[in-house]
């Protein structure tokens, strides 16, 4: 009764019912690879929550202060405020180390999920029209994630982060013409400057997260507007989405995923040490850590810096320093290609139509080859970033490893790309459903001529063996159900208030399929005759009750 009253109160003021009804009925495809984006979203949530906590204790200043806390080896030492507060967060703030480490692990997970999400979008062609805008937003969020990851672990002013900052400073400095000015803009002066930490801090906790919030909102709003892509399958058309409804099935599953992300983040944060700044020691301009490795998502840049030969040249008497080509060059080219990819792909295929059905990766062997090339290239660069550790572990000279990796980075990507291309063509040409089922003959077929690309599962012009049944419920609402050639059944996600609405929806979702009006089928669970959107009322009501309780308790607390 209470919830109903609360809901009525809200609805009379905001008119939420039809929006809520539509929202709760939104269909999400059941595809596990669609989870990567959600993992990134929930990692972001974990980052914001843990990050806000950290800002309450962290002091982003290079002003010298005396650390006087529980970490004995440092107690009484004069260090920067940033370093002292980072150590205090780890030793003196109760639960501080858990939150600090959970924040760092969440960042690693965040970027990892974004990269997997990007790869999924890439190999299935989900970036094609009309989703180019969301692709561009996504790539932008990847660059921001890299930027914020780097600014984040650079702030504690420990020796490792100082070394990383020095390298990035050198990379920025290497940009032709404006390098010195850019470096001063980013670092506030010649490295190390007292202005650096405040700039990193504001960038990390305010500017980038604000842009992130805006871009994530846009990303999700566009997904809701365009609706999800889906793989071809029974009943799946360009004009529909097949899957589970937001409420209840998808809500419960995605909340499970959110809880899972938080569980992993806190398990790692509590049990697996990361970035122990008290071991690295405070930054000093004359010292460096050895070995020094950045976080994994920027390590490819460090690997490129190690592998690239000593090339410096002059342009009109001006110097282009050695970090420019491997760090600025490789990074710029990578992101330019990523940004341009939807248009490069369209230029290659000549496909200008809107595509909501995904391409199974095998269908575009060329695209798989590009993805395999890129993944291998960056994997070799990642390995190169730990060449000194490999050298130490296996007691082999680092120059030999370097030479090997220099050869590998130029050859291995092409080998892997060729293999991926062949396997994709074999899969496309044969009957195997997965790589394991491929026969030798099919693989040979992948090497030789292969039939041109076949567009699968587009709207089927032959609608003879399909049927849409339409019926009226006892509560005067209308529903419909599609039955496919193999007796597959798909129910309309919503109940409609009129017959016309139901017919219109069915004929959009399944163009040209005959519609047959019947009695309610016996195997359909009918809604209770009391009305629609009950779930919406319950959910909204519960939320309002919770908020009311919080507000009431607040007001009690504020009372003198």
């Amino acid at each position, binding site marked *: 009764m209470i919830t109903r009253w609360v809901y009525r109160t809200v609805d009379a003021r905001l008119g939420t019912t039809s929006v809520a009804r539509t929202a709760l009925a939104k269909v999400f495809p059941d595809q596990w690879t669609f989870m990567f984006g959600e993992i990134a979203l929930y990692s972001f949530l974990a980052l914001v929550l843990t990050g806000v906590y950290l800002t309450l204790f962290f002091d982003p200043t290079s002003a010298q202060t005396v650390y006087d806390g529980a970490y004995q080896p440092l107690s009484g030492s004069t260090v920067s405020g940033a370093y002292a507060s980072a150590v205090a967060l780890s030793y003196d703030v109760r639960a501080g180390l858990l939150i600090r480490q959970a924040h760092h692990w969440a960042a690693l997970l965040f970027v990892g999920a974004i990269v997997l999400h990007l790869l999924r979008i890439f190999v299935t062609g989900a970036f094609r029209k009309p989703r180019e805008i969301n692709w561009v937003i996504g790539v932008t969020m990847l660059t921001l994630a890299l930027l914020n990851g780097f600014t984040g672990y650079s702030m504690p002013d420990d020796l490792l982060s100082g070394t990383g900052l020095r390298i990035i400073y050198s990379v920025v400095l290497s940009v032709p013409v404006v390098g010195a000015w850019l470096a001063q803009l980013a670092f506030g002066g010649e490295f190390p400057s007292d202005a650096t930490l405040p700039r990193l801090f504001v960038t990390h906790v305010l500017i980038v997260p604000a842009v992130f919030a805006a871009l994530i909102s846009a990303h999700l709003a566009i997904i809701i507007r365009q609706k999800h892509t889906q793989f071809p399958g029974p009943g799946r058309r360009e*004009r529909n989405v097949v899957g589970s409804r937001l409420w209840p099935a998808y809500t419960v599953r995605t909340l499970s995923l959110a809880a899972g992300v938080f569980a992993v983040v806190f398990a790692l944060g509590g049990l697996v040490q990361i970035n122990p700044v008290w071991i690295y020691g405070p930054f000093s301009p004359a010292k460096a850590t050895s070995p020094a490795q950045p976080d994994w998502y920027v390590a490819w840049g460090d690997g490129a810096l190690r592998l690239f030969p000593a090339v410096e040249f002059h342009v009109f008497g001006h110097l282009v320093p050695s970090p420019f080509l491997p760090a600025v060059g490789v990074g710029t080219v990578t992101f330019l290609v990523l940004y341009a990819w939807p248009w490069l792909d369209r230029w290659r295929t000549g496909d200008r139509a809107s595509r909501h059905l995904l391409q199974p990766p095998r269908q575009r062997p060329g695209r798989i080859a590009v993805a395999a090339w890129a993944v291998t290239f960056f994997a070799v660069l990642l390995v190169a970033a730990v060449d000194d550790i490999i050298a130490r572990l296996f007691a082999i000279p680092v120059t030999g490893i370097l030479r090997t990796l220099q050869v590998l980075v130029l050859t291995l990507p092409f080998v892997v790309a060729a293999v991926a291309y062949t396997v994709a063509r074999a899969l496309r040409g044969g009957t195997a459903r997965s790589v394991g089922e491929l026969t030798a003959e099919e693989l040979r077929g992948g090497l030789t001529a292969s039939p041109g690309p076949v567009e699968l599962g587009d709207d089927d012009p032959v609608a003879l063996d399909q049927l849409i049944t339409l019926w009226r419920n006892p509560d005067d609402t209308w529903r419909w159900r599609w039955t496919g050639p193999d007796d597959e059944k798909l129910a309309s996600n919503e109940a409609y208030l009129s017959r016309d609405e139901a017919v219109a929806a069915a004929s959009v979702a399944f163009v040209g399929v005959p519609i047959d009006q019947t009695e309610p089928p016996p195997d359909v669970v009918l809604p209770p005759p009391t009305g629609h959107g009950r779930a919406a009322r319950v959910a909204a009501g519960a939320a309002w009750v919770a908020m009311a309780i919080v507000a009431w308790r607040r007001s009690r607390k504020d009372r003198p």
Partner: protein
Amino acid sequence: MSGQHRPQGGTVHAIRLAFGISVLGAVEFAVAYGLGGNTQLLGVGLAVAFGGLCVGLWLWGRRLLPMGGFVEQRPPLAATQQDVTLLAHAIGGPESPVRRRGLLGMFALAVGTVGLALLFPARSLLSFRKPDPDVALDHTAWRFGGLRLVTPEGVPVRAADVGAETIQIVVPEGHTRDGDVPAFVVRVDPANLITPPPGGMVGGGLVAYSLLCTHAGCPVALYQQTTGRMLCPCHQSTFDLFNAATPVAGPAARPLPGLPIVVDADGYLRASGDFTSPPGPGYWSRP
């Protein structure tokens, strides 16, 4: 959709158990916090709390709720020509501002000028008080000639203190925290020298160079006496001290700049001037 008819007792028990474990995890977290906040116990508590929720909700979603089976229509995004025309009429009606080309031009000029003017304060991020960055990079505090070489902790270094096994890291007295000043002195056997050191040599084999790698600016801190080589721990650039610190391996392309040093009357090392060239990473206007 047929999920409702399956036997569910076991699943319901399992979900209840998972949520119960979640409660235990949360309680353990709170207790661990109260008892001093052991990081491992806190982490396990929250992991179990969220893990229980994850498993319980997962079972609920997979076993008690229908999976798939629904279809939603996706109308084309692009509007009909008629719709677009209506929008165009709505925007470009008779009194519409877009019809007043002259006013619009002036408006654009005003907005653009205001926008440009508002960009001016951004210049403050590049301080007016400091020298231009490309100029500042050309020299270091060593240029105030005669500064004593001190350790990073501030202890002056005597020529007699410098050995041959390890390098002595030095900075100019009074400028110990500058980023571009770190240098090192080491004693080498003059007989090994192929090329004379750019900063000269004092006291029968003392040489001084910038400590910063000419590739990405890391301190080149690893010295091997037998080969006279300095190795950078960041990207493995190697410099040959017997040959004027020229790079012999790795991504660095320029030798380490030398530091001209003298021994004063009290036996302390002093710099007679700045590095022989700007230290550290390269930049566009580097002379």
